């Protein structure tokens, strides 16, 4: 009953073919868990499974598109069959990067695509798994759910509206779920990292210029395995908000103390700061961004 959720878990991780999800899956297996590695990328998912098995762990790869409820329901059925029981830990991690355009220029299909995966993914996951987890907790098991949001969920960085909105939704979903789960024994955590070294920039829909800047920032990011370890340890201790990096913590505090000033400063930084383009013209093109500016074109390949 008092044992740690992350130890010997029957775990499901979405988006576990790459990046943070892959790191969660490997770390959970190292902690003795049986891990369902789910993703839309089955080659990558199988790669994660191989790494786990090579080190004596137990895992299977299961296809799941988190943006579709029926697909998440299939995942739950498949996982329960394999576990011969219900899961004890679900990590709604799958997500995509999108950005580069201001509101009004960002194509509507980018909004739909981003919200479909980043927001509807965790909604589907919570909808399907929350009842199962509640039952498992009632039966005396150590159970929990982790939703992967982002520092973007409160950061409100310009040119990332769809992403920010999706992650703010995940934060709110997690807070609500945590409130609902009080007293049930189900632990709820929401992970809000800033930059983590993963494939998110290269595999998402981010226009060329913004993606070059993001790639540069990414180099200073934390490693995915460290983020996963910190998050699981915080979750075991019952922490709701997981901010593995200091910049996220600082941003979070400032935003809560002086929200209006925060938003103005972020806007000015974007326009005149080291990352923002000094061009005051908004980007008008849709993804993939055609190479127009020779100064940025060499950074793309």
């Amino acid at each position, binding site marked *: 009953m008092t044992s740690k959720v992350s130890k010997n878990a029957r775990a499901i991780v979405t988006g576990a073919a*790459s990046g943070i999800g*892959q790191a969660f899956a*490997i770390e959970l297996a190292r902690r003795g868990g049986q891990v369902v590695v789910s993703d839309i990328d089955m080659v990558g998912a199988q790669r994660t499974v*191989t790494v786990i*098995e090579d*080190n*004596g762990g137990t895992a299977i790869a299961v296809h799941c598109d988190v943006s579709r409820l029926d697909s998440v329901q299939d995942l739950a059925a498949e996982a329960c069959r394999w576990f011969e029981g219900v899961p004890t830990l679900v990590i709604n991690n799958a997500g995509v990067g999108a950005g580069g355009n201001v509101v009004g220029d960002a194509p509507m299909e980018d909004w739909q695509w981003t919200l479909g995966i980043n927001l509807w993914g965790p909604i589907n996951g919570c909808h399907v798994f929350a009842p199962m987890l509640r039952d498992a907790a009632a039966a005396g098991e150590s159970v929990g759910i982790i939703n992967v949001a982002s520092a973007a969920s409160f950061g409100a960085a310009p040119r990332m509206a769809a992403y920010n909105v999706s992650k703010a939704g995940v934060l709110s979903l997690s807070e609500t779920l945590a409130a609902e789960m009080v007293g049930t024994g189900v632990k709820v955590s929401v992970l809000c990292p800033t930059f983590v070294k993963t494939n998110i920039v290269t595999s998402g829909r981010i226009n060329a210029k913004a993606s070059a800047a993001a790639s540069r920032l990414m180099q200073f990011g934390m490693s995915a*395995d460290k983020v996963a370890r910190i998050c699981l340890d915080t979750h075991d201790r019952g922490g709701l908000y997981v901010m593995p990096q200091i910049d996220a913590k600082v941003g979070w505090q400032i935003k809560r103390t002086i929200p209006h000033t925060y938003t103005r400063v972020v806007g000015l930084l974007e326009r005149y700061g080291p990352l923002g383009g000094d061009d005051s013209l908004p980007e008008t093109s849709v993804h993939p961004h055609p190479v127009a500016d020779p100064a940025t074109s060499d950074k793309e390949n």
Partner: protein
Amino acid sequence: MMPRFTPHPPSSRARFALWATRRTLRPLEHVVPDGVLGVKVTRRLLAGMMAGAGTSPLGVEVTPVDSTTERFGRVKGEWVRPTTPRPGMVVLYIHGSGYNLCSTKTHRPLVSRLAKETRVTVFSAEYRLAPEHPFPAAPDDIERAYDWLLAQGWTADQIVVAGDSAGGHLTLDLAVRLLREGRDLPAGLVMFSPLADVTCSLITEREKALPDPMLSAAGVRKLFAHYLLDTDPLHPRLTHVLEPGEVLPPTLIQAGGAEFLAADAHHIADMLEASGTDVALEIWPGQMHVFQAANRMVPEADQALRRAAKFLVSALQASTAAAEAKEATA
């Protein structure tokens, strides 16, 4: 028959070794300079490390060989002989190097333990290394060493070829070459942590999932650059692609689960299996690169080496028995 391989969780000493290596060796990579100087520094470092990690057994005799003949050119290496060697059997051992580092001397403890465990005489071959000698110096030297062994009176069915890391890559290359030249194949192959993909894309993908405790994909790529120079890494003697039906001798592959070449080991095993080769793959949980050499640090080193020895001897026994039977009916 070999007992089936059942992976066990790493021993506590192996877990400690992994933890300690990650904290001491990995940061070193940032200190060692690039280029030729870096290679020289690393050569020294590695020689010291390998001497510290493994022990040399008693009762094994080492005799250096440096022969230059018109027919074979220069063949260098050393005979490593157990006290009472089995007659009519020999191992050609190809040490690992990243194509830049190490020598028969650094690998002498590992090779001596293999000789003692198998009671089979080993010829440990020296080959030229980058940056001084890029591709194809290394595989050419190895093929010459093999031909030289045959000229000493051994036949292919009396030979097992074994190697670690880049030596595993050279083992594969030699076998593929003999096969495509229509020549007799050795009795078996043994590969410890073999390299398959010199483009390093398998290493890079693996690193993203689980970084090696000793070195980075970027570091390995720099070493290989010295070896490849302008040669296309997809050259058929660098990237080996077996067609179905191109059957190699029975092969045992061992690698560590925590190491950078684990995906390469899988790749070779999958390819050999698809071609119809009798291949066994053992990935040892939580182990590092060529952990068989580190018997002073991890108990799994001897366990794995013993399994390899058993495989090697039974492959030799099977092939010499088959050769005798063939002679009897002829």
